[in-house]
């Protein structure tokens, strides 16, 4: 009985993903691709090779995060994934964003590893395992995230520069944008961070009664 239910859930999940993919292809990808010229393949240059290497590092890291059973290996996979993504930002002439990526996420990975070490009770044994998120949880995440990523990938007018030239300083532009046009989101984000900080203190702090 249990195996039948398992099989049925697999079939239902596969049908759901297939239907979703079909819908996305027909309704989003084909219309978006219709209006633009087919990309032409140029000669493979060294920057292209670097780009593919960075993309491979990113994908391998992402795979490591998703597939590893060991929480520390997952954290390290995340490190490589984010390092690769930082490198890709440099290809988009976004040096400030790239370094921010490194600073925030290497620090983030550090904290993650720290928490993994501190909060996992069996961390002293080498074979610590990640618990899986579950099949339906995974599909739900996929369906929720895929449209956003697709929309970004298809609707962004990507700069077609083949090689990163001299990078123009972007720091001042970003600073001006954050403090003028995007001030409200910026401030809201800081309020969210403040709430997180307060929450962390409340959760972590143990009340010690005097008596």
């Amino acid at each position, binding site marked *: 009985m249990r195996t039948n239910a398992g099989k049925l859930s697999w079939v239902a999940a596969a049908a759901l993903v297939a239907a979703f993919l079909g819908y996305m292809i027909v309704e989003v990808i084909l219309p978006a691709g219709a209006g633009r010229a087919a990309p032409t393949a140029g*000669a493979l*240059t*060294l*920057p292209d090779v670097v780009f593919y290497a960075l993309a491979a590092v990113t994908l391998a890291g992402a795979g490591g995060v998703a597939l590893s059973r060991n929480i*520390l290996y997952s954290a*390290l996979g995340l*490190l490589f994934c984010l390092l690769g993504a930082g490198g890709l930002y440099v290809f988009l002439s976004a*040096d*400030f964003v790239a*370094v*921010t990526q*490194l*600073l925030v996420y*290497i*620090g983030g*990975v*550090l*904290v993650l*590893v*720290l928490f993994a*070490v*501190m909060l996992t009770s069996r*961390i*002293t044994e*080498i074979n610590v395992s990640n618990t899986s998120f579950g099949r339906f949880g995974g599909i739900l995440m996929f369906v929720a995230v895929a449209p956003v990523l697709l929309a970004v990938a298809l609707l962004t007018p990507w700069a077609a520069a083949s090689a990163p030239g001299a*990078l*123009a*300083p*972007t*720091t001042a532009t970003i600073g001006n944008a954050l403090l003028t046009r995007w001030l409200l989101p910026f401030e809201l984000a800081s309020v969210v961070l403040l709430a997180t900080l307060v929450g962390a203190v409340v959760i972590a702090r143990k009340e010690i009664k005097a008596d």
Partner: protein
Amino acid sequence: MNAKTQDLSARSGKTARGVLLATLAFGFGLPTVLLAAVLVLSPVSKPAMLVAALRAVGVDLSAWSPNARYVLWAVVMVVLALIIVTFAAVISGMTVWWEMRVSARMQSRIGYNRVGAGGYFQWIADAVKLLFKEDLIPADADKLLFRASPYFVLTGFALVFVALPFGESLIAADLNVGIFYITAVTALVVVGILIAGWSSNSKWALFGGMRSAAQVISYEIPAGLSAMVPVLMSGTLSMQGITRSQGAWPWEWHAFTNPFALVAFGIFFVSQLAEGNRTPFDLPEAESELVAGYLSEYSGFRFALFFLVEFGNLWVMSAIAVTLFFGGWQVPFAGPEVFAAARGAGELPGATWWGLQVASMLVFVTKTLLVLNVVVWVRWTLPRIRVDQMMSLCWKYLVPFAFVTFVATLLWEILVARAPVASHVAGGAMVAAMVVVAFFFARQTRQNISAVGDRVDFTNW
């Protein structure tokens, strides 16, 4: 005392002239050769200069395909990277020797004195010994991560040198986001330390790694905030840009033109000591508590790599401090227009320009070594602090004061924009105050020495 020890002690007082000459030649020659290679290669590795330089020796690049040119440039960059990392390793070894000599002197010991004059070749002997040692991996360790962590540490350390200046045009890559980049890649070292601590599967190593991560995450905040002060004063994140916005004389340095920048330097210096796991913040590897902390289980060359990075970091932190606060490579009487005039309009710069580069490198290296010496001095003066003291120092004192200097610098910059004379007045007054402090310090030191009937004596090194 048998005949042999008598013989040794008799000889130890006086070094043979040949040994002395060999030590001096090697001790000064090796860094000089490496610095000269950096001096030549770092401007020449820039694409435009590379093309011009190769044309000067008769190789015409215009016939080459773009990919061939990329490969050539990549090869030049790899050679430059190898030279800079070798320089880092050599300066790290020399720092070990200098630290051991200074510590021996401060603790009334003899210290290194067997290999070469003043025991100078000890660091090479140690490195060779470590190369030949067995590379042990604990049976229950996570073998992959245990092997990988020294590479993380070394990568994080070596990447810093990309944006670390050596002189006016002597930098591997003058990134627009230089100081920000340096702060970011340094974190890779901590990832390596944390992995080393965990993968060793030893409680000493794990405690060391955890302490190190907690310490570095905490101290990165005051370090970053105080590094923002010179950035605010220069209006750029680029290391060369920050140096260019300062002058050559002390009263034109960031540390002295703004009273809050001097406080910021103090905060930056303390935070860098903590991030580099230096005494008084060496809790992650407290020998008396944790054997050796995160590297307890390491042996052989992996151990050597950890130590290389630890001592090489002294150069890095001193060089960053000099660039941010003490005028970097600025040469007196040689402003940007002098450099531009010496450069000339030709594709390749003239001999005067190279001379100016040598001068700027000398200024930078001298300042960096002076700051490095202070770091060594601090280590052998102060005892280790406790974990709770370390945390409260960071969060209760350094972070609030860093915020104060940050905001005060903003206001100061507004004042300087209204009345530029403020920075000149501050520069003059603070340099004068520093001279007075230095005078009193020297007088007190002399009195302390003479009070116990001793005398200032440098002959017994």
